[in-house]
């Protein structure tokens, strides 16, 4: 009987969500060092505006780890 078996460590995928201030398009991308919520985001892919804002940073776990 294994009493203290080590569970496989599940790490989340971290994403940043940019919202364009011109066309309100939301873009989900991988988190990059230096990103912070309400900081400047990447260029909008739809309208090419550089006025984007990081509106969320979150981690997504695989389905089986959700509780």
């Amino acid at each position, binding site marked *: 009987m294994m009493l*203290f078996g080590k569970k496989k460590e599940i790490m*989340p995928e*971290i994403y940043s*969500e940019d919202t364009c201030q011109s066309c309100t398009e939301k873009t989900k991308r991988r988190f990059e060092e230096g990103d*912070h*919520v309400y900081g400047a985001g990447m260029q909008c892919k739809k309208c090419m505006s550089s006025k984007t804002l990081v509106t969320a*940073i979150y*981690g*997504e776990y695989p389905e089986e780890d959700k509780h």
Partner: protein
Amino acid sequence: MRTRDDRVRAEIKKLCSGADDQEISKIENILEAATALNLIYKVVRHYYLMGKRTTSMFILVQLQMVMPLLLEEAEALQKAISAFKRGQPIGDGIGPMVVGKMMFGKEKKLAARETIYSEDEYKGRKLYLLKAEGPAGTVGRPGEAITRLVGDLGIKIDTIIMIDAALKLEGEKTGDVAEGIGVAIGGIGVEKYQVEEVASRFNIPIYAVIVKQSVQDAITVMRKEIADAFEKVTNTVYSVIEDKTSEGQSAMVIGVGNTIGVGQ
């Protein structure tokens, strides 16, 4: 508590000369998580060695019974270190995230150490928005800030609304939003006392909007379920403002929690 914070900060500054305030706050958070991990290690070792020395099975059985919970906590702390290192928002940061959005683009004034506030208008109501200064890893000093603003500066507040993460019970859903009354703030009780003291002195009702999550969720990188609760929390806050205040009155909205990775 303040002496401890100051001492830790001074030691970090001494070790990492040249690091900016944001980096120092990250290191402070990492150190706090590492200290908690070390404490778990020492307690487990204590029970293990005591069980061996006394050849008492019961001491070891006690350890075995709490081991799954300790392991869960230790794993969460380990993950928290990685989130702090990269400056990613944690589950506890949902309150500052909501208030940060409300404050965005407005003038920010210092209310207390590492704590800022902005003024806004909403449907004829004056809003005072308060949160820790991000994106550094700090919870600020909301108790001190409210004492200064309401008690010392004499700002008239008719309602206080606090947004915070709250511990969910097993079986409850992460990211569920609940509305209630009273001071929603954790810690050792100093901040809670300060807010309650001002509220009772000036007869201000306090309402709370909370986002349910586990201890693990609160200290590790913000889960999508919690980030998704953002809209619902914002709508709830505005509906509380509309319900509990009338035109011409004022409300203070406080985003409680660690604001790491969340600006304003």
